[in-house]
């Protein structure tokens, strides 16, 4: 599967119809998820703030998933020097940064009425902030190095170093005493919430994942065109 997609032309042919399809499916699932999210009863403890969960948790999932995609693509780019893998890593960074920003902001808006504070330096919040800083550092490094090959290598190393933070984000609520609650969905003994909340949450999670997939494909396509334009420009200059 990966070797088949590694051919840029094959990827361009596939992503041409796959990206809009994923985008349309994401929009449909988001509509269904939002409908069920606002049809669900308010929580007996958290009241109407429970509705923030339906956008906060998927954003937090995608913040980590996008980083895993970026680190995976960076690994393949670094080891096999494959241009499409480098393009994929580069394309994932701004999307991951966007979702991480959303996880932090919506979490803060949820935390203020529930915890009585916008921010606290606990392990979960701090490790997610570090995740955002890795994304921003990746993009800054990419912009700072003019030589594309050197830049891609440096960025790949940074992305792989930052991957160490992913298990810290995930298990921070188990390893340390945090104000942030432990995981309610991805647990060994099953989700700890009723289906009235779980169904819209999973729909929104799938919608966010498909939206990321669609945007990632389009950004990789843009990166392929950018490289093609750069190569043509270089050829015409010679």
């Amino acid at each position, binding site marked *: 599967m990966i070797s088949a997609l590694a051919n840029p032309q094959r990827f361009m042919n596939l992503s041409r119809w796959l990206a809009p399809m994923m985008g349309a499916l994401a929009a449909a699932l988001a509509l269904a998820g939002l409908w069920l999210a606002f049809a669900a009863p308010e929580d007996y403890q958290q*009241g109407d703030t429970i509705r923030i969960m339906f956008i906060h948790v998927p954003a937090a999932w995608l913040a980590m998933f996008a980083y895993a995609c970026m680190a995976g693509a960076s690994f393949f780019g670094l080891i096999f020097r494959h241009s499409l893998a480098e393009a994929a890593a580069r394309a994932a960074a701004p999307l991951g940064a966007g979702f991480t920003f959303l996880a932090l902001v*919506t979490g803060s*808006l*949820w935390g203020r009425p529930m915890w009585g504070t916008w921010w606290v330096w606990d392990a979960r919040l701090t490790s997610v902030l570090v995740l955002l800083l890795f994304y921003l550092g990746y993009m800054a490094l990419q912009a700072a190095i003019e030589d594309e090959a050197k830049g891609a290598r440096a960025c790949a190393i940074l992305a792989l170093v930052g991957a160490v933070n992913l298990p810290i984000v995930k298990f921070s609520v188990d390893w340390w005493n945090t104000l942030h609650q432990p995981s309610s969905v991805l647990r060994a003994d099953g989700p700890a919430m009723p289906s009235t909340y779980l169904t819209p949450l999973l729909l929104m999670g799938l919608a966010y994942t498909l939206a990321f997939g669609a945007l990632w494909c389009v950004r990789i396509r843009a990166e392929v065109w950018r490289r093609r334009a750069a190569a043509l420009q270089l050829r015409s200059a010679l």
Partner: protein
Amino acid sequence: MMLDLDAGRYAAYVWPAFAVSAAVIAGMVADTLLRARHWRREAQRLEASER
């Protein structure tokens, strides 16, 4: 199935969370589509001028 759009005393937190999410996602979609269109056109222009 009735929708409960009245967030009551938490409206000042719930609606900004949804507004920021909508704005950031719309921004990501717009930036992605504009970037793709720009580089597709640029590559096509250079290909055409090379022929």
